[in-house]
């Protein structure tokens, strides 16, 4: 039995989410597409391409438009991330206090680049452009938790805790 389509995507009916319920909940909002995409990503941590067709029918837009919107925004992921998401702020304030070294350290320790996931599926590394924690630079975010004045040692602890 193969529950993936030609492109290796999980079929809509096999997703651990009730897409119809989410569509019903959001489709009548003015400007419904972003709230709906957020709801899907909140559920699955990404937006599978197999949802595009149902979304496009419900909102009366083309699949191309759905794809265009999903891929325009940095927040939306088109592939399933690891169990944890580590975001490192690359913006100027964090650069002023050593974020460049922090980025290099993370990439080296995890042995991945940005937008990649470690082999054990534990951590996906992402850049972020400002977490609004500029008074306590450099800043990183692990899942929904924000950390300030992060040292290389702090980062090691975060990574160890996440991979444990």
């Amino acid at each position, binding site marked *: 039995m193969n529950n993936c389509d030609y492109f290796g995507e999980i079929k809509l009916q096999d997703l651990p989410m009730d897409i119809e319920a989410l569509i019903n909940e959001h489709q009548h909002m*003015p*400007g*419904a*597409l*972003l*709230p709906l*995409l*957020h709801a899907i990503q909140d559920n699955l941590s990404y937006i599978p391409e197999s949802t595009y067709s149902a979304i496009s029918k419900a*909102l009366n837009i083309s699949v191309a*438009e759905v794809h*265009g*919107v999903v891929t*325009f*925004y*940095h*927040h*939306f992921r088109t592939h399933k991330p690891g169990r944890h998401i580590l975001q490192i702020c690359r*913006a*100027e*304030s*964090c*650069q*002023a*206090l050593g974020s460049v070294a922090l980025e290099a350290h993370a990439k080296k320790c995890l042995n991945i680049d940005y937008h990649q996931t470690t082999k054990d599926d534990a951590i996906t590394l992402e850049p*972020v*452009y*400002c*977490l*609004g*924690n*500029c*008074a*306590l*630079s450099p*800043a990183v*975010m692990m899942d*929904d*938790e*924000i*950390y*300030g*004045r992060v040292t290389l040692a702090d980062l090691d602890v975060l990574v160890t805790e996440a991979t444990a």
Partner: protein
Amino acid sequence: MMTKIYIPRDSSALSMGAEKVALAIGSEAKKRGIEIEIIRNGSRGLYWLETMVEVDTNAGRVAYGPVKVQDVPSLFDADFVHAKAHVLSLGLTEQIDWLKKQQRLTFARVGITDPISLEDYIAHDGYQGLKNALSLSPADIVKTVTDSGLRGRGGAAFPTGIKWNTVLGCQVEQKYIVCNADEGDSGTYSDRMIMEGDPFVLIEGMTIAGIAVGANQGYIYLRSEYPHALVALNAAIEAANQAGYLGADVLGSGKAFHLEVRRAAGAYVCGEETSLLESLEGKRGQVRFKPPLPAIEGLFGKPTVVNNVISLATVPIIMHKGARYYADFGMGRSRGTLPIQLAGNIKHSGLVELAFGATLRELLYDFGGGSATGRPIRAVQVGGPLGAFLPESQFDTPLDYEAFSQLWAVLGHGGIVAFDDTVDMALMARYAFEFCAIESCGKCTPCRIGSTRGAEVMDQIIAGKDVVKNIKLVRDLSDTMLNGSLCALGGMTPYPVLSAINHFPKDFETKKAITAA
């Protein structure tokens, strides 16, 4: 009576462990049989002292900080619950010099109240502005805002009252109030502090805007990077709806105002108002041609007020205390106060709300205490990633929109990012192009192509190849981007680039020496 202990739930405080400190204080008190009431307030903005814990006393609140979990037992040993001395004692919060020297109007309640308690908001002068507004005609509300001299705090500094007046003058049934809470500029966090620390003031400001221009629906377009602000705003909106401050009949006035938070999705360009409106409509956040102005054809083609968080959050105090009161602060055409955010390599980082006119030097040294690393401050970037870098020789510039524009710099949203003497300005110029390339919406060519070409040419300069020729090329490219871009993203990326080249030529020329060698 139970002693009240204040521990911030502001996300920067959380980033320093405020949640764990709150839990530790709660459980330590229980263990020792001491009854306390923990209130999770916003941050006072003295971020280098977070987690700052305050104890309520008859003389006022007494502060301790920076408190870490391991300090909690010793705080109890010292009887901090009765405000006794401890190595982390900071004395009466209101007497801390850094705070005492400020003029907090927009931030009057932040750090003082429980952010999501409507009762607390009202007890601290909340909703006085709306009450006054409801007794005035729409035109008189708009006139008050115009007379206050309030200009858009998002960065463009356009007079708020004039924008409102355009929307008021449109004779259509459906109008909108949109709050731009897509605070993407590095070095800025004042919007976040308001939304987390005093969400009702934003709600009140938007309600006044709605009553003034005849809009019954408001949207807060909130960046996805601010999950705590989302929770606070939704809780406050719910409370305001329950109590009749929002909804079909605002305070029995017969006027409706509904408010909803919409999450952005991590695109910097959506801080540009037309791109924001596209995004709210469920589209790619591509910039629109202007005209038509959003005030005439905005969200879903209807007249729309698009204002920054701080602009809207400043309206309640103007409507409460009057246009004159607010306009009496400031200098020249920059009236009122500016919430300044000290960021980057700065010792005493945090929020400083002051009347316009203080100099950069006062902020960096009198408030900021110099760099965090102890090295000389070499450059500051004011106004976010599209703001110019200023060298030490310009540190005596007063914070005033016009004074900054004379220097070919911008005040923007009031963020100041300091760099010490280890900064390589050629790398900063390269980053400015790179950031523009990552965030460009792609609609106009100068921004879409120019940003990538700019980063490539900077790579050549950094590698020491044809430095003189390539700097000339960067200047030429910057000229095209400045004059040919559709919005400020491409149009202002040359500010950090050219200011870096002009004020710090050595960082670029040393690369020339490498070529010659």
